[in-house]
């Protein structure tokens, strides 16, 4: 009897060891890479600038962006593509087609989601609503309350994605519309304090949704030097926690590389923006390790 019990016990512990090491092998040694690609303020720039353009000669173009995105996706299928707003307005394509072509092309490029910029109201909130069927991607905005408008239920505060077992939470932010857009255009859209909303969003995405990576798509603008009371990507970065990356827009700020800010927990948060008109594509790669002995704040940032 005693001997039988011993054998059973041994078998059990062997199984434990085997399973344990199998488990470790399948989880621990692999590094996972999530690639985030982003644009902002493309402003209906579909064709590249011509060779005679004074400032942006031979730059930009949606078809070229498509090639670039495709090659990056081929290299890493765990790629997400985002836009931080002001898709509309800037070339006659918008005046003639009201944004239809912009949305159709972004769908062909397989954008994963976008937030709403002030110029996306240029044909009124109905004009944006009318083009939504052409977009195969979602719009997200956490601080525009659309409940009394046609966009009610069509815009979600956030979206989550799972890529290679990594959960990514993305929420959207828009700029105050009063004074920037005619009230007759944005109708009863309510603007909510983006800092407070972001604190809520980060908590929901981290604690409730258990996201490994939290990204904000912001159309607040990078920074307002003469008005530090105005909410911007930099003030947002400093006043919140648990956000890993803020993808910005609105101010057409050409950042050669992402800015590293300290959040309210004194941890690093990246803020990026790639100017305007589709002249550049931003790329931020996040590497995850499943070695549980790693310390919590050991991420090295190479920009």
């Amino acid at each position, binding site marked *: 009897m005693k001997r039988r019990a011993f054998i*059973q016990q041994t078998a059990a512990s062997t199984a434990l060891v085997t399973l344990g090491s199998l*488990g470790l092998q399948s989880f621990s040694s692999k590094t996972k890479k999530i690639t985030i690609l982003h644009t902002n303020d493309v402003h209906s720039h579909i064709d590249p600038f011509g060779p005679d353009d004074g400032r942006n000669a031979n730059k930009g173009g949606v078809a070229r*962006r498509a090639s670039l995105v495709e090659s990056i996706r081929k290299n890493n299928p765990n790629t997400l593509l985002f836009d931080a707003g002001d898709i509309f*307005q800037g070339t006659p394509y918008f*005046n003639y087609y009201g944004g239809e072509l912009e949305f159709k092309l972004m769908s062909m490029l397989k954008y994963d989601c976008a937030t709403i910029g002030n110029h996306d109201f240029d044909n009124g909130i109905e004009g944006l609503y009318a083009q939504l069927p052409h977009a195969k991607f979602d719009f997200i905005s956490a601080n525009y309350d659309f409940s009394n408008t046609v966009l009610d239920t069509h815009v979600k505060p956030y979206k989550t994605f799972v890529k290679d077992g990594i959960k990514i939470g993305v929420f959207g932010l828009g700029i105050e519309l009063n004074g920037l857009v005619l009230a007759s255009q944005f109708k009863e859209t309510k603007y909510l304090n983006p800092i407070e909303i972001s604190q809520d969003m980060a908590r929901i995405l981290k604690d409730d949704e258990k996201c490994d990576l939290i990204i904000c798509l912001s159309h607040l603008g990078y920074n307002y030097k003469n008005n530090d009371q105005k909410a911007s990507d930099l003030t947002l970065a400093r006043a919140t926690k648990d956000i890993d990356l803020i993808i910005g827009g609105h101010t057409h700020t050409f950042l050669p590389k992402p800015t590293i800010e300290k959040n309210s927990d004194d941890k690093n948060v990246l803020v990026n923006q790639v100017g305007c008109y589709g002249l550049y*594509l931003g790329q931020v790669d996040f590497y995850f390790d499943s070695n549980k002995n790693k310390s919590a704040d050991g991420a090295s940032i190479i920009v």
Partner: protein
Amino acid sequence: MNLKFFIPILTLFLFVSCKQDHQLTKIVGKRLDINDSLTGQQSIEDFIKPYRENVNKNLDSVISYAVDTYSKSDGELNTAIGNLMADAVMEQTNPVFNSRTNNDIDLVLLNHGGIRSILSKGNVTTRAAYQIMPFENSVVVVDLKGVYVLELVDYLKRSKRAHPISGMKLILDENDNIIEVTINGNIIDTERIYHIATNDYLYGGGSGMTFFQKKDSVHVLDYKIRNVLIDYFTKKDTLNPVIDNRFTRN
């Protein structure tokens, strides 16, 4: 110990540890250029092509003829191209305003900075209207009491720029004092309500035009400035605007 008992616990343990295990270790950020070193994706090119051809066909359609090349830098306090724009707004929008209110527009005021391009000599296309006015601004008519119209006059005097006007005559002396100011030939009645056409951007205080906020009321015409130009150009066989005496310095 039973093995069957062990496995569920073990599985749970592994699952939990996996879930907590994703440790962010490295972030690499960079900016990628989109330029002519990249070959455009053919399927996207093919998709855009019919849209582009349709837009270009329309934009390149000839709608008028310009006798000369006109620039907003030709002229100190009034320019031929600015006069053309202000007169176009007067001519195109007054019938709309009159049909709705039985009143006439007294004055048009636009801003010099809002003239975004020259008008080139020769055939004038729809594209020219887009170049001169790439923005979506629309015409609004502001009902403003005469006393505040004087603030508008003071604004013009102080800014000393060729802001496009129509319906008003303003003469300054060499020290920039006002010698004469009239609307439709009459001196300004401080108690009367004047109907002033402008665009929604300026009405909202753009270019420092704060006086519009002292309005009695505002009428939104839903007529874009660009469409005013397109309609005006289409109507006129030849464009031959001139610098005149509507805003001058003696």
